[in-house]
């Protein structure tokens, strides 16, 4: 990629609060400019480069327009990859107390009371995202990473709740 990151690629400022209008506009303009159809008849290297750029633009747009993915991407640019388990550069491990709470939550779920638990965890997932964004705004990447990891645990839990409700009994 010639541009350093998705923000540069799509011509928007590198921060969580972004100009949605500019993102949409630049995405459409730049996608059209590098659409493979415009390169038919040119040498294969040029065609391939256009295709790669298109695919980068699509990936960048998908990442930046999503509030969670955008936050996680900023953390990644800050040096912490939440998709990795590497102890140094990967997602930070949550505290033992937090993990115990995650187990207890499942037990509360098994006892019934699905609606109340879901509501509580949805709220906490949102709080974790907000706290992560606030930390990013302050430039505290490690803190943002911790909050976003907590959000993933909450999200994972909510996905399980959804799956259990869809399952025919």
């Amino acid at each position, binding site marked *: 990629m010639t541009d350093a990151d998705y923000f540069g690629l799509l011509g928007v400022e590198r921060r969580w609060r972004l100009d949605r209008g500019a993102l949409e506009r630049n995405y459409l303009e730049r996608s059209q400019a590098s659409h493979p159809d415009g390169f038919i008849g040119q040498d294969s290297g040029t065609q391939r480069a256009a295709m790669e750029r298109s695919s980068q633009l699509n990936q960048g747009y998908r990442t930046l327009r999503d509030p969670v993915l955008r936050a996680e991407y900023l953390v990644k640019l800050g040096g912490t990859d*939440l*998709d*990795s*388990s590497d102890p140094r550069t*990967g*997602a*930070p*491990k*949550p505290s*033992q107390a*937090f*993990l*115990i709470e*995650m*187990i207890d939550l*499942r037990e509360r779920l098994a006892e019934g009371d699905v609606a109340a638990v879901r509501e509580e965890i949805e709220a906490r997932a949102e709080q974790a995202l907000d706290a992560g964004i606030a930390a990013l705004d302050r430039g505290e990447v490690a803190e943002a990473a911790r909050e976003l*990891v907590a959000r*993933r*645990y909450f*999200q*994972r*839990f909510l996905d*399980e709740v959804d799956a259990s409700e869809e399952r025919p009994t």
Partner: protein
Amino acid sequence: MAYSTKVIDHYEHPRNVGSLDKNDEDVGTGIVGAPACGDVMKLQIKVENGVITDAKFKTYGCGSAIASSSLVTEWVKGMSIDKAMEIKNSQIAEELSLPPVKIHCSVLAEDAIKAAIRDYQQKHGTPAAE
């Protein structure tokens, strides 16, 4: 993704699902998580005269994570805690034919059994090895 038959077997018929009393002096509890995906694993052992006599687990995660913890509880029953401490994630991954993207599930299971043993040792004032 294609799971191996052993993973599917453990996933569909997990061994030793459940809990032991974490306040029991003879019980060690290990709780570990995989931050990248949000999996949580609780593994407990009951130890008598240095030998693991019972093991239970609860894993909230993918099929490979469930299979890895199920397999470990099966393995450690009847094993001395010293021997159980030597279990390597590579042995788990090999037994279950885990693909590279699922290796971290076996790492989680290794971490869980080690954490359970350390918890037991701490209860008994044995300095945690390592």
